Structure formats: C-alpha cells, structure tokens
C-alpha cells in the first residue's frame, strides 16, 4: 500500500491536540469525505491524540493518504513512548477510564473508524493506527 502523501506532527500539548484535529479535518475535506465521516475521524483522532499527551507523556501523529485497489483512505498513526498499556482488551472496553474522559476513549475511537490497530508494550510505549476508507 502506497502512501501518496504524509505528514508528521508533534503531540505534546493541548494546542497540539487541536492542531491534529484541524489537520485531520483538512485532509478529510480534501478527500471529499462527507460531514459524518469527517466528524467521526476527527473525533477518533482527538481521543487518541489526547491519550498520547495525557497518558503517553507526549509523542507524535503521522498522517498518510493511502491508495489501495481503487479506494483512498486517510490513516493516522499515534505513537508515544509512555508507560504502555498492560491489558489492551480491558483498555478497549467501554467504561474503562483512568479519570480524564468518560471511559469511551479507545473503544469509542475504534467504532468511529474502518480500521483500528493497537500495539503496546509496558515501559516502551503505545502505537494506535486508525484508517477511514472511501
């Protein structure tokens, strides 16, 4: 799968979370995703970006424009070198919270996108990849 375009942004502050939301929105509009698809992708990105800042001690987000057998997609990879997640299944369950949200972060973000991948190692960090196809 080829990335037609990519961009990496830092994720350390509230302002960075805002910038990710704006950048993902711009990419989604450029690819003519409809309003609901845009909103779902931006919301999922906001959840994951905040996780990086609040729990991961900062990191980065990489946006990629993908082309795969005639369809196009926007993929965003969130990466941090934070404490990692010991029990991913538990973290994906609705209602799981460490206190900043409503416990809908990871599981909720997963429902808003087409592809969702998560990898985490305790003490090393976490990487979450989301993709919206059209």
């Amino acid at each position, binding site marked *: 799968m080829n990335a037609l375009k990519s961009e990496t942004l830092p994720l350390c502050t*509230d*302002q960075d*979370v*805002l910038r990710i*939301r*704006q950048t993902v*929105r711009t990419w989604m509009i450029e690819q003519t995703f409809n*309003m*609901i698809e*845009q*909103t*779902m992708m*931006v*919301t999922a990105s*906001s*959840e994951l970006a*905040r996780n990086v800042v609040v729990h991961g001690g900062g990191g980065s987000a990489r946006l990629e424009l993908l082309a795969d057998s005639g369809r196009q997609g926007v993929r965003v990879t969130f990466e941090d070198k934070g404490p990692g997640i010991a029990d991913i299944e538990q973290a994906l369950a*609705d209602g799981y919270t460490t206190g*900043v*949200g*409503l*416990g*809908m*972060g990871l*599981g*909720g*973000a997963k*429902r*808003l996108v087409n592809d969702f991948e998560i990898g985490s190692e305790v003490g090393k960090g976490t990487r979450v990849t989301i993709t919206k196809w059209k």
Partner: protein
Amino acid sequence: MDQIPINKVGDFLLVSLQVDMDDHQALLLQNDLTNQVVKTHAKGVLIDVSSVDIVDSFIGRMLGNMASITRVLGANSVVVGMQPAVAITIVELGLSLATIQTALNVDKGMALLQALVNKATNEGRYERLEK
C-alpha cells in the same frame, strides 16, 4: 488564548462554545460559568454548541459537568444547536450524555428554561399553600 464569553440574557446565561476549544479553555470555562451563575443569580444556562464541530469524550464530560454543577447551584442547563454529524458521532462513540438537557436551537432552549423556571416557581407556590 481567548476566554470564552458568557452573556447574561434576562434571567439566563448564554455561552457560545467556539470551534477550536482546547482542553485548557474548556476547563477555564467550567470555572468561569460556575462563578457567573453564583454572581448573577442566573436561573438557567444555555450552552450553544452550534459552532462546535466535534464532541469527544473530554468535551462530553465537560458538558455533563457544567450541567451538574449549575444544577447544584439552582440553574438548569440546556445544550442547544448540536450539529447532526456531531450528534451521530456522539452516539457511535458511546457517550450517553443522559444528564444533559438539549434543545434544537437557542429559541427552543430559552423556552425550555423558562418552562422549567415557571414549573419550579409554581411548585414552590403549592408547597407554601399546603403549609
């Protein structure tokens, strides 16, 4: 970073959330609104979210908190003007926002608040009559 303005309209407060609100601004607003409800003796709060293009779990929690806090202080809150795409995303995300009262727009929200105030006033009157 701009502070989000809170305007007094009659007995109510009107807050219009802005497009690009970061988490810090959201928390500041929560405090501001709490202080303003006490200071102005507002009977209700209208939270206009028509310019808000996403509500994630943090913003959702903030809306719920603002509604709960103002209620404790004797003012009902109504969230108005939510965009359809935001509403669909909230449900898909799994936020219930069960504690939040909503209305389609500012006018309907204002009418709802007025009805709640009237109801409370009437109930107060009946209680006094019964005694």
